C-alpha cells in the first residue's frame, strides 16, 4: 500500500508550493487531473524519485521510500513520450527493464517475445524506436513496464496523442495490470481514460 503524507515540494523561485496527502491500495487507480503547471507531473516525479521532496514521507507497505534512488523504488513510470532509448532496438529497450546489464535468462527472453506478441508487436523485436508509430512505441514502453513487475505504475499522459485503436489496446493492458493488483497513478487530461481506468478522481 502506498501512503503519501504531507509531501511538500517547492520549485526554486516559486511562491506557492504543493502538498500531497493520500493513500492507494493495490489494484486501485487514482486519476489526477488539472491544468498545466498544477503539479501532476511533479507528484509522479516525487514518487518516482526524480525530484527530492522538501518534507513529508512516501511509504510503500509502511516502509519509507523517499530517500531511495529511483531504481530502488517499487515503481515503474510510463511517460507521454521519450520512454525508449532511440538508439537501441525494441528487444533491448524491453530487456533493460528486466536486467539493467541485459543479462537475461532464456525465460526472460521468452517473456519479451510473449509481451510483444500479446500487444500485437510480434516480429518487432529488432526494430528501432524511430521505425515505430506513437502507439507502437507506447505499447513497447508498457510491455517493459509490465514485465518489470513493480507493484506501482505511474502513468504521465501515456495515451495522449494516440489514435482510438491504440488507446483501447493500451487501456485493456492497463486494466489487466490493475486486476493483477498493480496500483496505478494516472495523470491525464482525457475524461474517457479516467472513466475507464480510475477508481478515484483527484482534481489538482
Amino acid at each position, binding site marked *: 500500500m502506498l501512503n503519501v503524507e504531507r509531501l511538500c515540494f517547492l520549485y526554486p523561485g516559486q511562491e506557492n508550493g504543493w502538498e500531497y496527502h493520500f493513500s492507494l491500495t493495490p489494484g486501485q487507480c487514482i486519476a489526477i487531473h488539472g491544468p498545466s503547471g498544477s503539479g501532476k507531473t511533479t507528484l509522479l516525479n516525487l514518487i*518516482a*524519485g*526524480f525530484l527530492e521532496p522538501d518534507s513529508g514521507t512516501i511509504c510503500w507497505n509502511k516502509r519509507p521510500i523517499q530517500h531511495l*534512488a*529511483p*531504481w*530502488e*523504488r*517499487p*515503481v*515503474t*513510470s510510463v*511517460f507521454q*513520450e*521519450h*520512454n*525508449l*532509448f*532511440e*538508439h*537501441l*532496438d525494441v528487444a*533491448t529497450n524491453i530487456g*533493460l*527493464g528486466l*536486467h*539493467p*546489464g*541485459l*543479462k537475461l535468462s532464456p525465460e526472460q527472453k521468452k517473456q519479451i517475445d510473449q509481451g510483444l506478441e500479446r500487444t500485437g508487436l510480434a516480429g518487432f523485436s*529488432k*526494430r*528501432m*524506436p*524511430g*521505425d515505430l508509430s506513437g502507439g507502437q512505441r507506447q505499447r513497447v514502453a508498457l510491455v517493459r513496464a509490465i514485465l*518489470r513487475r*513493480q507493484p506501482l505504475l505511474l502513468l504521465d499522459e501515456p495515451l495522449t496523442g494516440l489514435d482510438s485503436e491504440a488507446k483501447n489496446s493500451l487501456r485493456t493492458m492497463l486494466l489487466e495490470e490493475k486486476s493483477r493488483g498493480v496500483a496505478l497513478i494516472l495523470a491525464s487530461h482525457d475524461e474517457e481514460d479516467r472513466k475507464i481506468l480510475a477508481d478515484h478522481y483527484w482534481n489538482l
Partner: protein
Amino acid sequence: MNSPARTAPLSHPGWQLAPGLLLGLSLILLIAFGLGSMLLTAGSLDIATVLNSRYLQGVVWFTVWQAMLSVFLSLVLALPVARALARYKHFPARGLLLRIMELSLVLPTIVAVSGIIGVYGRQGWATGLLNEWAPGHGWSLYGLNGILLAHVFFNAPLAARVMLQALEAIPSSRLRIASQLGLRGWWLWRSVEWPALRPVLPGLFALVFTLCFTSFAIIMTLGGGPAATTLEVAIYQALRFEFDFPQAAVLAVIQLLICGGLWLLVFRQRLESSLIPNRQLSHPVPLRGWPLQSAFYATLLFIFSVFLLLPLTAIASRGLPTLFSFGSGSVYEQLLPATGRSLLIALPAGFGSVGSALFILASARKAQNGILKAIPTTTGYLPLIVPPIVLGTGLFLLLRPGLGHNAQGWVLVALINSLMALPFIIQILRGPLNSLDSHSLRVADQLGIIGWYRWHRIYWPLLRRPIALGLAYGIALSMGDFGVIALFGSPGQPTLPVLLYQQLGSYRVSEAAGTGLWLLILLVLIFGLFSAMGRPPIYRRHTSSSPALLEPKHA
C-alpha cells in the same frame, strides 16, 4: 525490487567523478609547471629591452599580420563554398568534396606542403603553366604568398565545413517559410542564413586565427627566410639553435598572451559550444534562387575541388614511383623505422586522448559543484589557450637537465600530442553523450541502468562510432605532428614528418614525395580501420532506417 541495479559494477558516483577530476588536476598542474618554469626563465631577462627589440617586434607583427590575412582569405573563400554546398546539393562530386574537406583537420601540414610545392613551387605544375602564359610573372611560393596559400588550403575547407553545418542546422520550418515567401539574395541571407552563421563565427575566427598564428611546418618550409619568421618558429630557433632559453620563454609568453586572450574572449561570450554543431537537423527545402545560380555554384565548387585536389594529386603522382622502387637503397630503409617511431608515439597519444576525453566528459557531467565542474571543463579547452609549442617550451625548460634519452622525449611528445587533440575529440564525443535527453536519463535511472551497465548498454552504442573517429583523429594528428617532435625529437631518429622535412630540406624531392604519400596512405588506412571498427553490427544497420537516430551526422 530490481535487485541487479544494486550490484551494478562501478555504480558509485565517484567512479564517474574522480578519474576525470584527477586527470584534469594533473594536466592543469603539468601545464602550470610548464608555464611556471617558462615565466621563471623569462624573468631573468630585462623585459623592457626585449620588448623594444626590433627583431621581436618584427616577429610579432609578422605573426599577427599573416594570421589575420590568412583568416580573412580563408573565411572569404569558405563562405560562398559553404552556401554553395548547402544550396546546391546536386553537385556531382559533393560527397567526395566533403570528404576531402574533412581531411584538412588531419592531413599532416608537412605532407600538404610537399603537395603544394609540387603544384605551385618553382618546378610545380601551375608555375609551369604560368611560365608559359605569362613569362616574367615574378611568382614565388616562398614567403608570404606560400604561407597564405597553404593556410587557405588548410583552413578554408575547415571553415566551410563548420559554416555548412551551421547552415544545415537551420530548422526546416524556417527554411519552409523562406521558401514560401520566395526570399532570396539579401533577405534570405539577412533573415535565415546570417542568424545561423553568426553564433559560429567568433569561435571559427578564433580557431582559424590560432591555427594560422601557431603554424609551424608551413612557416619552416615556405617562409623563405628570416623576414617571414613567426613566434612559433622563433621559439624553435631560440631553443634548438641559439640555446637562448630566456628569449624562447619571452616569445612563448607573448604567444600565450595573444592566443589565450583571444580564446578567453570567445569563452566569455559562451560561444565555444556552437563551434561544431552536433547534428544535421534540416531536410532539403527548395529555395528561390537567381538566374544561373546553379551554374555559378557548380563552377565555384569545381574550382574549389581542383584547388584541394591538385596538391593531393601531386603527392600521389610523384610519390608512387618512389614507393614502387624496391631493392638496395630503397626508400623503405628509412620509411619503415620512421613509421615505427611515429606509431610508437601516435598510438598512445590517440588512445590517451580519447580516454582522457571520456573521463573529462564524465566528470563534467557528474560534477554539481561549480569549481569541480570547472576543472574538467577547463582541462578540455586548455590546449587551445596554451599552444602545444608553448607547453612544449615550458616542459623543455623544466625537464632540460634530465632529458637524456630519446624515449623520454617521445613520451613527452605523445603526452603533448594527446593534449593537442583533446579539444577536438571532446567536441566529437560531447554531441552523442548529450544526445540522451533528461527523460531518457530518468528512464535509465528508474530501470537501474547505472554505473558500468549505463556505459555498456546505453552510451557505448551511441559512442562506438564517435570513439572510433576520435581515435582516428587523435592518432592522425599525432602521426602528422611536426612542431612538438621538432622540439624534443632527435634528427638521427626521425618520425615520418621529420623525415619528410629532412628530405625536403636536402632537395630529395622524389623521396619526400614518397614519404608524403606513405604517410597519407597510413592515415587513410587508420581512418578506414577505425571506421570499420566503429560500425555497428550488420543486423542493426539493416534494421535501423530511423531518421531519429541520435548519432550526430558528422560522426
